[in-house]
C-alpha cells in the first residue's frame, strides 16, 4: 500500500457541558491508505461520527473541544489549516454523505441547483455545469437524470435523495468519501442498493472511503479494514475478515453477535451487555 492519505494520531475530543465533561473520543489513532475502504463500527455515542466530523474540523466548538492529537491529510495538518484551506478541504478533498438524505438536501432548491452549487464551489474550471450534473446523476444510477434534476427534494424517494447526496459529494471529486451511516434511514432493499452503488463508485473513481456504521452486517464485503469504537476509544482494528472471524475484544464479539442470522434457533435478538464488557 502506498503512503496513507489520512493519518489520525492520538485524537482526543471532549464535549464540555454545563455540569460535566464527556470524553467523546480518547486517543484515537488510525490511518487510511489511498484507495482503501475503512469501516468505523460502534454503537450510538461511541464517538464514530464525532471522529468523522473532526477530520475536517466540522465540530461545533464549543461544546466540542479538541483536546489534542493531530490529523494529517496528505501530510498536511488539518488542525493548523486556516479558514480558506478548510473550505477547500471540506467537500473538495474530504466529502461527506450523511444519514438523513431527506433533511440533508435543502427543501427550497432543485437537485440541479444544489449539485451545481457544489460543482461551482470546488471545480470552478468546469464550464458546462449542467453536463457535469447529468454525468454524476447518471453515475449514481438515477433514471432520466435530465428530468429528475429539475425536481425538488420532496419529489424524490429516500433512496433517490441519498443517490443525489452521493452525486453531490462525488461531483466535487473528493479524495476521501466519508459515509456517515448512509443507509440507516433507508429501508432494507434500498440499503443494499446504496451499498452496492458505493462499492462500485469507489472502484470506478479510486476514492478512499470511510464507512461509519453500527451495523456489522453491511461491513463485510464492503470494507477491507475495520475499526471498532467503544465509549470513545478504538478498541480493535484490523482486516475485516480477521476481525469478523476472530474478534479479540468482548465488545466486538458482542456487536457481531447482534447481527441476526436466518435459521438461528435463538428466540430473542442479542443485545449488548455493557456490564459484562466492562468486567472484561
Amino acid at each position, binding site marked *: 500500500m502506498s503512503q496513507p492519505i489520512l493519518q489520525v494520531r492520538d485524537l482526543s475530543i471532549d464535549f464540555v457541558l454545563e455540569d460535566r465533561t464527556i470524553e467523546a473520543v480518547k486517543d484515537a489513532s488510525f490511518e487510511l491508505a489511498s484507495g482503501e475502504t475503512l469501516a468505523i463500527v460502534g454503537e450510538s455515542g461511541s464517538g464514530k461520527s464525532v471522529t468523522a466530523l473532526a477530520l475536517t474540523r466540522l465540530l461545533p466548538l464549543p461544546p466540542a473541544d479538541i483536546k489534542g492529537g493531530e490529523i494529517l491529510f496528505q501530510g498536511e495538518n488539518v488542525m493548523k489549516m486556516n479558514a480558506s484551506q478548510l473550505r477547500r478541504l471540506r467537500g473538495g478533498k474530504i466529502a461527506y454523505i450523511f444519514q438523513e438524505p431527506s*433533511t440533508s438536501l435543502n427543501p*427550497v432548491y432543485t437537485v440541479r441547483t444544489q449539485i451545481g452549487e457544489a460543482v461551482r464551489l470546488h471545480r470552478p474550471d468546469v464550464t458546462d455545469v449542467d453536463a457535469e450534473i447529468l454525468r454524476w446523476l447518471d453515475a449514481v444510477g438515477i433514471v432520466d437524470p435530465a428530468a429528475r434534476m429539475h425536481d425538488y427534494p420532496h419529489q424524490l424517494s429516500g433512496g433517490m435523495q441519498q443517490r443525489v447526496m452521493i452525486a453531490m459529494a462525488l461531483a466535487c471529486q473528493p479524495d476521501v468519501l466519508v459515509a456517515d451511516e448512509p443507509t440507516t434511514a433507508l429501508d432494507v432493499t434500498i440499503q443494499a442498493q446504496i451499498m452496492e452503488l458505493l462499492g462500485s463508485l469507489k472502484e470506478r473513481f479510486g476514492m478512499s472511503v470511510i464507512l461509519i456504521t453500527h451495523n456489522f452486517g453491511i461491513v463485510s464485503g464492503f470494507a477491507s479494514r475495520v475499526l471498532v469504537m467503544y465509549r470513545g476509544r478504538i478498541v480493535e482494528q484490523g482486516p475485516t475478515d480477521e476481525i469478523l472471524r476472530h474478534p479479540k475484544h468482548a465488545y466486538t464479539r458482542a456487536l457481531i453477535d447482534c447481527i441476526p442470522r436466518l435459521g438461528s434457533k435463538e428466540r430473542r435478538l442479542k443485545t449488548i451487555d455493557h456490564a459484562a464488557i466492562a468486567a472484561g
Partner: protein
Amino acid sequence: MITTTPEPLPAAAASPAARALRRFKANKIGLFALGLVCLLGVVALTFFILDRLGIPWPMDPNATNLERKLMPPDSVNWLGTDNLGRDVFSRLLNGAYISLTVGFVAVFVSLSIGVTVGAVAGYFGKWVDNLIMRVVDAIMCFPTFFLILTAVALVGPSIFNIIIVIGLVSWTGTARLVRAEFLTLRESAYVQAARALGQRGPKIIFRHLLPNAAAPILVTAVLGVPEAILAEAGLSFLGFGVQPPQATWGNIIADGKTYILDAWWLILFPGLAILLAALSFYLTGDALRQAVETRSERQ
C-alpha cells in the same frame, strides 16, 4: 367493504412558492381579503395621483363650505361634511394613501432592521446573540405606542418622521422571529451538509437560511402593515400624526370626536375605513400563514 380511490397525483407545482400559492388560492377568505387589499391599494394610488394632478374628485378634500357644515350624508356629500363643511368622502379617499404608505414603508424599515439583527444573532449565536437579544429585550420593555408617541413628539410630526419612528421601534418582533428560525435552521442537516461542502458563512446565511425563513418573514411583514396603519391612525387621533390640513383617517376622527353626538358620520366612516384596511391585511396575512406552513411537508 373498503374501497380506496387512488389519490390524484398533485399537479406539477413543485417549488415551495408554487405550492404555497396553490394553497393560498384554495382559501376563499384569504383571496377575498387580498382582493380588498388590492382594491385599497388601487384607490389610494388613484386618489394620490388625482390629488397631485390637481383634479379634485369627487370634491376638493380641503375646500371649506361653512354653509354646509356638519351635514349628514346626502346626494351632494355622500358621507356628509365636517365642522368646516369639508366633504368626508373626499377626505377619506385622499387620506387612504397616507395610511397605506405608512403601513408599507414602516414595515419595510422594521423588516430590514429586524431581519438583519435577527439573522446576525441567530447565525453567530454565543455572545453576539446574547448581546443583541438583551438589547431587543430592553427595547421591548417599553410599550411600543408610547415609545412612538414620545419619539414623534421629540422629532416633530411629519409623515417621514412617523414612518421612520414606527419602523425603528417595531422591528424587535421580527428580529426575535428571525433569530429563532435561524437557530433552528442552523442545526438542520442541510446546513451541516453545506458546511461539510465547504461553503462560506455569508453564503450559508443568504442561500440556505434566509430562503427557508422567508415564509414566516413574509407573514410577519403582512401582519405588520395593519399594526403600522393603526399606529399612524392613533398618532393622528392624538394630534401627533400627519398635520392638518392633510386628511388622514386618524385626524378625521380626531376632528369629529367633538361632534360625536350630532355627527355620527364623522366617526363611523373613517373608523370603518381603518377597520376594513386592518382587517383585510390581517386576514391576508393569516391566509398566507396557512399557505406557507410547510413544516409537515419538510419531513
